[in-house]
């Protein structure tokens, strides 16, 4: 079961309102995406914690409904 890119972005932005989300459909099959998420709320968090925040936003879909999401998280001051 695939997810639309827009749906992924909406879920992330609902949980992390200041997030700037860039989604790329890697395979064109609606099932393999990469996401770059920039948010001030990532400041001071480890990479693991930043990714956990995004996974939490996706509410358990990661690893299930959403098979493949390459994730990159950035706090703005890191650029």
């Amino acid at each position: 079961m695939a997810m639309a890119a827009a749906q992924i972005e909406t879920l992330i932005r609902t949980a992390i309102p200041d997030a700037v989300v860039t989604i790329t459909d890697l395979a064109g099959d609606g099932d393999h995406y990469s996401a770059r998420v920039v948010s001030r709320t990532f400041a001071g968090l480890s990479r693991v914690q930043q990714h956990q925040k995004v996974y939490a936003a996706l509410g358990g879909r990661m690893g299930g409904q959403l098979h493949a999401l390459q994730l990159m998280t950035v706090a703005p001051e890191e650029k």
Partner: protein
Amino acid sequence: MTSARERIEGVVRDNEIVLFMKGTELFPQCGFSSRAVAVLEHLGVPFKTVDVLQDPDIRQAIKEYSDWPTVPQLYVKGQFVGGSDIMMEMFENGELQQLVGAPAR
């Protein structure tokens, strides 16, 4: 009977570098696991792999253990380091080499 969680704790404690993955080092069953193995091989350090596809209990328990929804998962010196994206990022900026004490190239 040891629980899946106890078995995970044991393997993470007894091996300095552990990769929980889908498939084996020789036959990874997923692109992300394959990428993770490639990174570790490139580092030239010994590592242990655990194939979660062989063990549904471990496959479920590892997600709870690290509060991380996906496999592969890398552990170094008992600490959860991240999945394949974090591994790649740390490899590219040299952090991973430092963490595992990779021989200089």
